[in-house]
């Protein structure tokens, strides 16, 4: 076992608790999670912080981790088919471009995410919406 420790911020609420993960780099699995000393959490965690990490090993309990881009090639209602990243990116780009041309940029809506992705990904999403698509139609699930 090759163990390393990484400190990060808990993703389960706005308290922003610091967690220290121990990882087995050989198997790429989390071994342990313990509270770290953060400004807000002072070495404490709640149940989600202590025990909310085993989803990451895709345990197939509630839903399956998505590990490949998928497209409904046969249109609405057809089966989702796994495709390559190149195909998926091009497919999205083509369709969005088509809709933008036909109905204008304000016919497209994008969301950021108040959950796992982080600030940089949100910045990129709103920049994409505003600079590439050309609309301010970007929002996120702040009101949930």
């Amino acid at each position, binding site marked *: 076992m090759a163990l390393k420790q990484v400190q990060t911020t808990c993703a389960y609420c706005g308290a*922003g608790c610091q967690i220290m993960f121990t990882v087995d780099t050989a198997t790429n699995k989390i071994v342990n999670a313990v509270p770290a000393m953060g400004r807000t959490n002072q070495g404490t965690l709640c149940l989600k912080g202590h025990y*909310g990490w085993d989803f990451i090993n895709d*345990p197939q309990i509630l839903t399956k981790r998505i590990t490949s881009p998928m497209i409904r090639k046969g249109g609405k209602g057809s089966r989702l088919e796994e495709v390559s990243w190149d195909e998926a990116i091009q497919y999205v780009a083509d369709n969005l471009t088509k809709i933008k041309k036909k109905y204008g940029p304000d016919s497209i809506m994008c969301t950021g995410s108040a959950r796992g992705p982080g600030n940089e*990904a949100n910045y990129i999403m709103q920049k994409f919406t*505003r600079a590439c698509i050309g609309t301010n139609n970007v929002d996120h699930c702040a009101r949930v």
Partner: protein
Amino acid sequence: MTMGVHEIEDAKLIFNFGYNGADSHPIVQRRIVRAKQKGATIICADPRVTECARIADVHMQLKGGTNIALVNAMCNVVYNEGLVDQKFIDEKTVDYDAFVEVIKKYTPEYAETICHVPAETIRKAARMYAKAPSAMILYGMGVCQFGQAVDVVKALGSLALMTGNYGKPASGIGPVRGQNNVQGACDMGALPNNYPGYQNVTKPEIQEKFEKAWGVKLSNKVGVPLTHVPQRVLEEKDPKKQLHAYYIFGEDPVQSDPDAEEVREALEKLDFVVVQDIFMNKTAEFADVILPGTSWNEHDGVYSCCDRGFQRIRKVLEPPKGVKLDWEIICEISTAMGYKMKYKNTEEIWNELIDLCPNFAGATYAKLEKYGNIQWPCRSKDDSDKGTVVLHQGKFANPDGKGKFYTADWRPPQELENEEYPLSLSTVREVGHYSVRTMTGNCRTLRNLEDEPGWIQMNPADCEKLGIKHGDLVKVVNKRGWCITRCNATERVAKGATYMTYQWWIGCCNELTIGSNLDPVSNTPEYKYCNCRVEKLDDQAKAWEYVNTEYKSIRERMGIKMVGKEAV
């Protein structure tokens, strides 16, 4: 929040309004408990006996949907009994007289008829709040998730203004933001009216700055709020305003948005739906394209916690084969559409954005490493600028530097109880599950602790009337939809009111919630009030069979192979 989470435990008085930290942020509730242990006075306004209400010196158990009447009445007492901080009002605020005109009507006796809180209790709470050397207001979704929400926030702000409770340690007003990075998504401009750093899209000088930075012409038209999407798809007649494509990133509106049926209809009608997520979810079932991103623990970055604190997140594990970093996916699509975006890593993105946002400019990765947590505003890259704990010190962020008084008359919720649907229904939080539960529902012990079909919290007297016992399966129904869940008979809720948490597939309360009554400013739906009826299910065995079969079938749709797995 205008203050820091760590300051809560040093408060002399905490006025906790519609905020249930014990279930939504246990580690913030910990500070409230510590404050109480250190001698703080606690006032709690909540229709339920929450953990905070339980330890409060005064608990105002108001009827749901009457928030502003209660706040106005407290302001009325403070005004009539001369408990105001006149010097603060004279020097640092505007619009006091207009505000007083509104609150005059809200005597505690009048408010009692609306809120069902005894007038003397309102007086007692108002006096306690006004006389405390410093007082902190914490509020949560119990304030925000109503058709009349922003009014209440402003009224609470006015209560703090009239007593001079700003700009000193352990004072002010704190919206304790729910999700881990809701503050961050707002900070980053994932909002229809703001660029990153709360810079308004309608201001020409701001538009010009971003056009220059991004090298492209930008729109100055405020965009569509998320909660308007179903209406813009299903009902909008003006072709220019109709939505045709929806790129959903790290969200599950079918589960989390009100009136699930309406959301499903909208997704079906849209020409093109992209879902970028880590797990299969109910929204992904309507996607034309699914793009697998990375999970928390698989990427680097920064989150903003509820008190404006930037903190690093770090890659703990290598992501599985086949997925891509979220920002990489978006950059590649953008590039394929002709607007080139390319970055080496999150730090490069971060550096671009903090240079565009004066309030974030000083919070470099190097400083985040060094200090661990930086509360914005942090304007200078110099090591000496460690951020700002308390906002509004000296002057307010308004253009004239003054605090603005405002309140409004009470408006009842849109959909009230009636003969057919005699109970009220409000959505609340489940402590062991996060959001739509695709992550925590896949965690073994958290699933063990609470699982389908969830609970509906009801007063024992209401249960008795219906002949149902704690633990019985019941049907909850109103004109928009229905679901099946378990009865949780508890004296912690008032007669006539019911409460459900929103992450269950079977006990899915968003089949019933109301999507049309949005706050006019924040566009937040009225998750906290609609009507419903609870029905007894005579054949419990059959009902359990329905729950188990349905659970199994949804899990199968979500890609779980049920072979060898026991039914729930």
